[in-house]
């Protein structure tokens, strides 16, 4: 399979999934913006209305963290089940197994493009004007994307061998949500603790980087970001090779377990 064929297959599967999803819901494509807004709404009510956040810019602080996080958590959770969800195709033809998580990731990418536009609209509407610093978003989004790909591959393999991992992955996402500073500020922690969180939780770094750029017009910690990108990039390459090696075993597991 050539790279262009591979991409065409991912693209066509993603578009089909988006289309069939939209046709299933009454509000159709509107859910692309409604869902993230509802997520933000829920968090806003809990952490700003009920528990006073003591931040005048809490809404912006929240959207800059929550919207990229939802991109990660939804993509990875869904991609983790993608191999077993495609047993029909897997039982019919010998295909590269990365195709299935990638199709889910691509689907998430199309949705996220709209979500980022929504984020920018909220920022503009509340008086945050774009500056040259916003170009730093490109490497941040790229690292964010690489993290999604690497974690999705790991999740898809684990779930294929043991369905029980879906539960762990769900739990892991909740843990990550609480520890990544979505509704609390990493920079308000004791410096030693903040450093520890940043060191062990790359998601916290990503979310903080988005905020640095969008709210402070400052460059993110590029060295740290590059390390995270390289780490997950390396993991992606290892997983691609592993999934190629395990291809037939994954098919057997998907079809018989």
């Amino acid at each position, binding site marked *: 399979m050539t790279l262009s064929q591979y991409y065409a*297959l991912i693209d*066509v599967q993603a578009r089909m999934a988006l289309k069939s999803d939209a046709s299933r819901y009454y509000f159709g494509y509107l859910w692309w913006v409604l869902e993230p807004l509802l997520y933000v709404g829920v968090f806003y009510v809990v952490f700003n209305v009920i528990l006073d956040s003591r931040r005048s810019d809490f809404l912006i602080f929240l959207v800059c963290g929550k919207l990229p996080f939802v991109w990660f958590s939804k993509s990875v959770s869904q991609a983790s089940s993608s191999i077993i969800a495609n047993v029909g*195709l897997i*039982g*019919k*033809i010998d295909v590269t197994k990365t195709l299935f998580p990638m199709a889910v990731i691509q689907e998430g990418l199309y949705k996220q493009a709209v979500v980022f536009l929504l984020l920018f609209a909220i920022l503009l509407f509340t008086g945050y004007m774009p500056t040259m610093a916003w170009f730093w978003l490109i490497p941040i989004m790229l690292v964010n994307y690489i993290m999604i790909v690497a974690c999705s591959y790991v999740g898809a393999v684990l779930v294929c061998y043991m369905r029980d991992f879906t539960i762990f992955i769900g739990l892991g996402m909740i843990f990550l949500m609480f520890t990544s500073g979505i509704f609390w500020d990493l920079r308000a922690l004791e410096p030693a603790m903040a450093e520890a969180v940043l060191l062990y939780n790359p998601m916290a770094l990503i979310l903080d980087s988005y905020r640095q750029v969008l709210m402070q017009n400052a460059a993110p910690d590029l060295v740290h970001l590059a390390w995270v990108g390289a780490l997950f990039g390396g993991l992606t390459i290892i997983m691609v090779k592993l999934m190629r090696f395990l291809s037939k*075993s994954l098919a057997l597991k998907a079809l*018989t377990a």
Partner: protein
Amino acid sequence: MLELDNVVLNYRSGKNSFEHGVHNVLNGVSLSLYKGETLGVIGKNGCGKTTILRLMAGIFGPTAGTVRRRANTSAALLTIGLGFKPQLSGRSNALLSAMLQGSTRAEAESCLEEIKAFSELGDGFEEPVKTYSSGMRSRLGFTTALMTRVDILMIDEVLAVGDAQFRAKAEAALKERITGEQTVVFVSHQGPQVQSICDRAIWLDQGKIAAEGDAESVLKQYTASIKLGPK
């Protein structure tokens, strides 16, 4: 173009506990498939017919033994139950199948109308596959496989369903294709069909080849064993 040498396949399945959860599906199977021939595979349910197709198509790997396939030969399996994304329309599924078998998007799209016409699904072609009857599914599956070009076509019981009219049409189309260069492996438990389509046949029993040879004689042995009842 394809050779199986003493192939064994077993797997562990979750919590099923016979033989400690290990299923022995194939137990030392050797066979060769030649270019342009039509090989029939017969046997009772659960004797490993579908598994042997999946091994031949390179979907599964053997636990022991070797599967040798000539380089760059494509293979696809045609089954009734699996193989579709139920929430997508017949058209989308046909497009996806064709692309998975190596067609470009443009090539795949160009044969969609032909698939729609041959399958006689009409407006149903645009409906989600989950609304299809099993006959409609088999029409779609059969037509999709027929229109797309694979070197080895593996057909798993597909002709067993569908109404008589479509079955006759499908058989005719298949025969036309078989007379050409197409290599086909055909699984069925309908004796007459195997006899009319296949050059050669194997009879699988309990993960082993019980008989092998020209379709007629293998079928005779198979039907004789059925009449005698279980051994």
